[in-house]
């Protein structure tokens, strides 16, 4: 089921009554989620991504704009008539019901012609439980399950009605690191097996990039960029997206364009033909550095972090915006010293230029 959002806006009355007015949580959001894909909705806390999810779900009415599932306008429909399944951040399992009763609950709410027989309901619950591999735990209460198991029950409950759209709100944030890795692969597997259009909200860019077919980066209620994870990473539209994606984060320097070349300080680093002279913000991905004794770029190295697979050079630079520059080089590169000046060459594809005032990308 394709989901189309057109000019979706949500305003909340300002909590601070004296200030009055409205806070815009989601601002003129225009996006189409392709059918059968897993979409990662990504942004920092408070950027409106959960509000957006609640609007798709039907828990929050939009202030303006429309929501289409396929060709159906569902903007005015209550959640139960939209055919959505939702997994909440805290799972929201009913603590007084067993796992089986929790999964059966959405089916038992069906009325009239849709009402299923007891046997069919049980079979469907059984099937959903098998899909998430909790069919051994049907008689337990949620309080007797681990966080990961509760998560699976929540997914089974969301899937049991065979929704057209599955929505997950920060599904992994309550799990420990190892379980998180395992569960995100599990979500990917379940999504592939069922082919249900899935939107999941996260503030963890690694989570979003690792399993999504497409990611949507949001900031302050505004859609920043969409695309395949690698595309967005390699070609960020602005400084926010560049800084938000990638760990360690992109290194940001102050630089200038002079005589069709990029300067940081007095070092001429890259040729940028056709770009007028101006101040620029320079983003260099940690993997964009190459150790090179004749390289044009010099930094003061503080120390070396050996990660096994690769080596991180922790450096300082007067034009750097922040404390330490992180440059990741392959571990087979021999780093002889662990302090002093290092010289480096830059990989042009890993260097992005932005306007200092708006953060917009300056392409070269």
């Amino acid at each position: 089921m394709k989901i189309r959002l057109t000019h979706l806006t949500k305003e909340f009355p300002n909590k601070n009554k004296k200030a009055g007015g409205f806070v815009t949580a989601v601002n003129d959001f225009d996006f189409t989620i392709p059918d059968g894909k897993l979409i990662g909705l990504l942004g920092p806390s408070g950027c409106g991504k959960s509000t957006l999810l609640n609007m798709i779900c039907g828990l929050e009415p939009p202030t303006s704009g429309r929501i289409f599932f396929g060709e159906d306008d569902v903007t005015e429909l209550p959640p139960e008539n939209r055919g959505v399944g939702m997994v909440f951040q805290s799972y929201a399992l009913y603590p007084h019901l067993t796992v089986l009763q929790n999964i059966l609950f959405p089916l038992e709410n069906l009325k009239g012609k849709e009402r299923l027989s007891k046997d069919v309901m049980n079979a469907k619950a059984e099937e959903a439980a098998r899909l998430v591999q909790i069919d051994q735990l049907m008689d337990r209460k949620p309080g007797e399950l681990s966080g990961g198991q509760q998560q699976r029950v929540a997914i089974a409950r969301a899937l049991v009605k065979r929704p057209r759209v599955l929505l997950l709100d920060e599904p992994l944030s309550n799990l420990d690191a190892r379980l998180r890795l395992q569960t995100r692969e599990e979500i990917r597997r379940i999504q592939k097996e069922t082919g249900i259009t899935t939107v999941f909200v996260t503030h963890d860019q690694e989570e979003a990039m690792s399993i999504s077919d497409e990611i949507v980066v949001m900031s302050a209620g505004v859609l920043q960029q969409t695309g395949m994870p690698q595309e967005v990473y390699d070609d960020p539209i602005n400084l926010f997206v560049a800084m938000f994606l990638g760990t360690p984060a992109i290194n940001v320097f102050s630089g200038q364009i002079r005589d069709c070349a990029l300067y940081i300080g007095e070092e001429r680093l890259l040729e940028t033909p056709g770009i007028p002279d101006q101040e620029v913000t320079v983003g260099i991905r940690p993997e964009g550095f190459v150790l090179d004794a004749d390289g044009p770029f010099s930094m003061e190295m503080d120390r070396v972090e050996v990660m096994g697979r690769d080596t991180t050079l922790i450096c300082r630079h007067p034009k750097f915006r922040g404390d330490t520059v992180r440059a990741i080089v392959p571990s087979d590169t021999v780093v002889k010293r662990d302090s002093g000046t290092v010289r480096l060459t830059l990989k042009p594809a890993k260097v992005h230029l932005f306007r200092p005032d708006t953060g917009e990308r300056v392409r070269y």
Partner: protein
Amino acid sequence: MGKASVKPWLYLLPALVFLSIFMVYPLFDVLVYSVEEGYNSASQTFFGVGLYNYAYVLRDPYFLQALKNTFILVIITVPLSTGIALLISLGLHSIPKFKELFQTIFFLPYVTNTLAVGLVFMILFKKTPYSDGFINLLINFFGGQSVDFIEGPYWAKIFVMSFYTVWVVLPFKILILTSALASVDPVLYKAAKVDGASRGRIFRRITLPMISPMIFYLVITGFIGAFKAYADEVAIFGTNLNAAGMNTIVGFVYDMLYGDSGGYPSYASAAALILFMIVLTITVINLLVSRRTSVNV
């Protein structure tokens, strides 16, 4: 006994001493009184030991009247007050505005003196040579006949008594239930909505089970409180409850000890123990029911 095992008892000692003197000993003493036949408090003598006191009390028409009154009061007021409190709490829970104001208004009776409130009820309901009382004025207005609620027919007195009791116990129940409702995680309601549950089903399948421990608590304490009713009756019907036919078990116990026909601690003790057995039985039944239906959250 080693040093280590003396220490905890030492810490417990103050509490144990007070509990023994003021709880265990009187309980034991009541038991002793209740089986001493023909006990004379002046001479501190008795004829023998047996269950005569119980037999006497159970044949006393005043006690039987008090027993009947108490049971009627309990059966009417406990479910009624819990039900009304639940309705009001649900209402309070669902209104966003003036919630605190209404909570305060509903809580006012709780901090008001019982006797003062009783007086107000008497003025509202009492029929005097000068006025039929406010309630009767209302009844007349709607074309009904005046009823003497305070000295009139039995059902009218029971009505006033139940009305009053419900009114007095409501605030506490509303307080408990509103906080119980507020403690239900709102995300459960969101989930239930997404799961397509109607409002009625959300209430039956989510809200009610989630607050059921508090409801059971209120029912149990409500039963115990109603069985121990006395002061409220005095406030409305005056001290001679036997004459009014509105005595309660605790009232009977009091009369047997200090009333005009009093001075019989043995009968009073027997009546008190009968009340104790009734309350114990009801509470055990309540606990068993609540354990069977309760949730482990």
